[in-house]
């Protein structure tokens, strides 16, 4: 058998192109920000793990970025598979990116049934240009029959709210074991093929 069963909590970023998903990813992974879209800097990097200490236990978050597939085509359904949480990201200065989230929500519910869903309004630093209000976000959450487990406002440019959001998501995932158990049942006896072809199956692992 290969690795220990998905020991991390897979979290995916969803939302329109340009709302700041990769910026969130970059803040999370390296605590940096780049104004110009310099895709080259993230080439080859598509997920990143970090350990969070929460009240109940240590939680390892594994954040996944889309890889830019949503620019013109749709994201593959496999992106959603095995995820325990999804962050719906929109730009606070762009109501269209907010209004289209119901579509992204549908994708999450379809392909990652038991994932917890979080809402994140990005570009909070553009104070004077904010067009999506807290009330709008509350209404959206209510319309989603309380599928939304948390609402956050972040600025990847300044870093405001980013770490707080991930820490809060970590604690919420740490408390809830439901989706975890379902995922474990799903992957019972499954494994990832390993990196070391010549090693014996027992002592190999994915990383």
């Amino acid at each position: 058998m290969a690795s220990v069963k998905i020991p991390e909590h897979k979290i995916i970023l969803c939302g329109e192109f340009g709302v700041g998903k990769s910026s969130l990813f970059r803040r999370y992974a390296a605590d940096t920000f780049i104004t110009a879209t310099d895709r080259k800097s993230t080439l080859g990097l598509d997920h990143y793990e970090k350990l969070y200490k929460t009240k109940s236990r240590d939680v390892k978050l594994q954040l996944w970025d889309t890889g830019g597939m949503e620019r013109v085509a749709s994201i593959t359904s496999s992106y959603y598979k095995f995820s325990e949480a999804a962050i719906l990201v929109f730009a606070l200065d762009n109501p269209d990116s907010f209004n289209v989230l119901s579509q992204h929500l549908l994708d999450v519910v379809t392909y990652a049934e038991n994932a917890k869903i979080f809402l994140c309004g990005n570009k909070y630093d553009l104070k004077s240009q904010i067009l999506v209000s807290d009330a709008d976000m509350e209404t959206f959450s209510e319309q989603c029959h309380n599928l939304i487990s948390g609402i956050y406002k972040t600025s990847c440019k300044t870093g405001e709210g980013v770490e707080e959001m991930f820490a809060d998501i970590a604690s919420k995932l740490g408390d809830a074991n439901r989706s975890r158990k379902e995922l474990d049942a799903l992957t019972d006896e499954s494994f990832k093929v390993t990196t070391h072809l010549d090693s014996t199956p027992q002592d190999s692992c994915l990383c």
Partner: protein
Amino acid sequence: MDEEYDCIVLGTGLKECIISGMLSVSGKKVLHMDRNKYYGGESASITPLEDLFAKFEMPNPDESYGRTRDWNVDLIPKFLMANGQLVKLLIHTGVTRYLEFKSVEGSYVYKGNKISKVPSDDKEALTTDLLGMFEKRRFRNFLVFAQDFKEDDPSSWKAMPGFDPNTTPMSAVFAHFNLDRNTIDITGHALALYRDDEYLAKPALDCLKRIRLYSDSLARYGKSPYLYPLYGLGELPQGFARLSAIYGGTYMLDKPIDEIVFTDGKVSGVRSGSETAKCKQVYCDPTYVPDKVKQVGQVIRAICLLDHPVANTKDALSTQIIIPQKQVNRNSDIYVSMVSYTHQVAAKGWFVALVSTTVETADPEAEIKPGLDLLGPIKQKFVTVSPLFKPIDDGRESQLFISESYDATSHFETTCLDVLSIYNRGTGEDFDFSKVKHNLGDEEA
């Protein structure tokens, strides 16, 4: 899309997605388009179940099929050899991190109207019910020879005087070990996985390597040499598409492909409607270039939905059964592969079996009857007969590189060989796996 690219890839089947991934990783600017609005082309796993029924112009499935979203049905059945080329590609490109696998539970071979477990090592050779007492010993001696064989070490093939892996035909090796027709059939078709008997006259090296691939694959995860991904084979092209996107590849789906543009006999672009994307090379599957391929045969595939496992497989939730050609008086083998709800490809309690072979007669459905008969009652059956296409040239002249249709083999070895050959023809070099920095995403903070 009015931009200039190094390469445009048409179709998102598995071969095209692997090629797209390799090209992007190698630093090429890639545009990857599909006329369908989903990823995978013929390699997609169809979901929900209504879509499969609709594809075959049947009314919607009734409620006995459970939740239709739980179904992901492959159109082309194949397993991965645990130590084979595709697993190596998955590991070296890092695409393995997108996928979860299960080991296929049983590997069986059909002989005299019943199925038996495929014996693969010297111990199983002695306990199998496929062979008579004296034949078992001869088969065991042959397997020991095959297991000890090392291509670059002549002392490892002392057991057969005068043997040379590059000249001695396989038939002579079988003759030396005194194996009878039955044993040869099992060895060539269930272990070396040949589809017909042409290998007998060819040098033994290839056959011995294939037997080694089988036993090495079996050694990796135990139950059988085969692996299958959760959610179906359609996850494979998606994984490679993601690799390509992460290395800068651009994806466009639901895009009609109206013309491949040539300038002075070389490709110069691809037109969709009024837009034309310029490029130096085009890579595509045969369906995009019907006038540049020739038909070389046909494959019949029957997708069968079952509400029970296959008899005599110890209720295995996944299995492979090979019916060697001679057992049913044919020239090519019949393959039966079965997966189930445990792989997230069917609703709880359901099984999906695929019976396939190379077409030899005018009545292909009758040809697969021996395979269908093994399955027991079939709830629903979907039959396709697909032409097998090959490109009419190697593409070097026109810079238009066309993949071959997916053949009837039960695994991905020929698929990978085609991909690696296309990559070599297109770039003039073999793929350099060290270009993939797939460890980047896996490091701890």
